[in-house]
């Protein structure tokens, strides 16, 4: 088993979405800079990070950062990702949302991730936290569906009232 080690970060891959970034990741498995292509071998990446930047004129600002402990290519353009972490940022650099899942399957053709397992989402300020079981993440329109047992906790300051 060969390992493709080393983080992609801070390579400045200016792509439209993380799905394309993952596509590049898949491509790197087979056409890596060191010519590690081994069609008959089982390959995976570990401790990878990839970033997406805002469009000009904010091309220096990170829009999202995708990382994982392991990515295992599967047939049909699928990737099994372990310890997925997706972070999105506002244009002024503040952490906006953090999504974490122990394991999921990413479809590089549909730019979508899904899992029957656990998922957590929280805002950058930590005041809004969501957890659930089973999810579908559509990267193209940044849409997340949590299928079961959705639990949200909203922290408010001592001097604030809550919403409803």
């Amino acid at each position, binding site marked *: 088993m060969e390992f493709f080690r080393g983080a992609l970060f801070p390579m400045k891959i200016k792509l439209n979405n993380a799905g394309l970034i993952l596509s590049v990741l898949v491509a790197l498995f087979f056409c890596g800079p060191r010519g590690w292509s081994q069609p008959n071998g089982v390959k995976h990446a570990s401790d990878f990070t990839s970033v997406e930047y805002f469009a000009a004129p904010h091309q220096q600002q990170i829009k999202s950062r995708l990382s994982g402990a392991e990515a295992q290519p599967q047939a049909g353009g699928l990737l099994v990702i372990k310890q997925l972490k997706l972070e*999105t940022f*506002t244009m002024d650099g*503040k*952490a*906006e*949302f953090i999504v974490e899942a122990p394991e999921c399957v990413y479809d590089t053709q549909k730019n979508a991730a899904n899992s029957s397992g656990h998922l957590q*989402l929280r*805002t*950058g*300020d930590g*005041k*809004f936290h*969501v957890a*659930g079981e089973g999810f579908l993440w559509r990267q193209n*329109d*940044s*849409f*997340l*569906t*949590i*299928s*079961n*047992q*959705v*639990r*949200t*906790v*909203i*922290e*408010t*300051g*001592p*001097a*604030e*009232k*809550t*919403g*409803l």
Partner: protein
Amino acid sequence: VKKIFLILWFAAAAGSWSHAQTNTNTVLQMPREPTRIDSDRADFDIAGHKAIYRGNVRVNDPQMKLTCAQLVADLPQPGERMNHIVAETNVAIDFVQEKNQTNHATSDQAVYLYNVQKGVTNETVTFTGHAKIETAQGWLTGEPIIWNRVNNSLTARNQKMIYRQTTTNAAAVNTNRVSAPK
């Protein structure tokens, strides 16, 4: 006579709300429990900053409990708070006033709005569609009923009040005496 009923009822209610607000202010000095939302499933439009909770939605808040079939919330920007929430279908809200007096509100839809304009805080819950609030004094219906959470007051258009016949509230007893046919 009907007008007198409403004035008396709102006077009693306003007194209760004022006490409730006093109590609330006391509570606000203490650490606050978080708000919890549970549902069968949920959609999050990350780019659109919107959360849609579906199926058996339950909101558990130190100040009230809510159940409904669907709840749509605008996700706050970093450092901000939720300012627009819409609860739909079989909405039921229980909120406790002084002396553990629980009010029970039901409607087809409830819309929470929060904003600060020119230094003035506006925070309301608007009940529409078969809106009804049950209190210790009786039942209030209207279209809509607006719960102003800043001063804990209730206002309603096309309101109708039905009083309980057996009550220990002094104001309500007097009201009943006035309303009882001779």
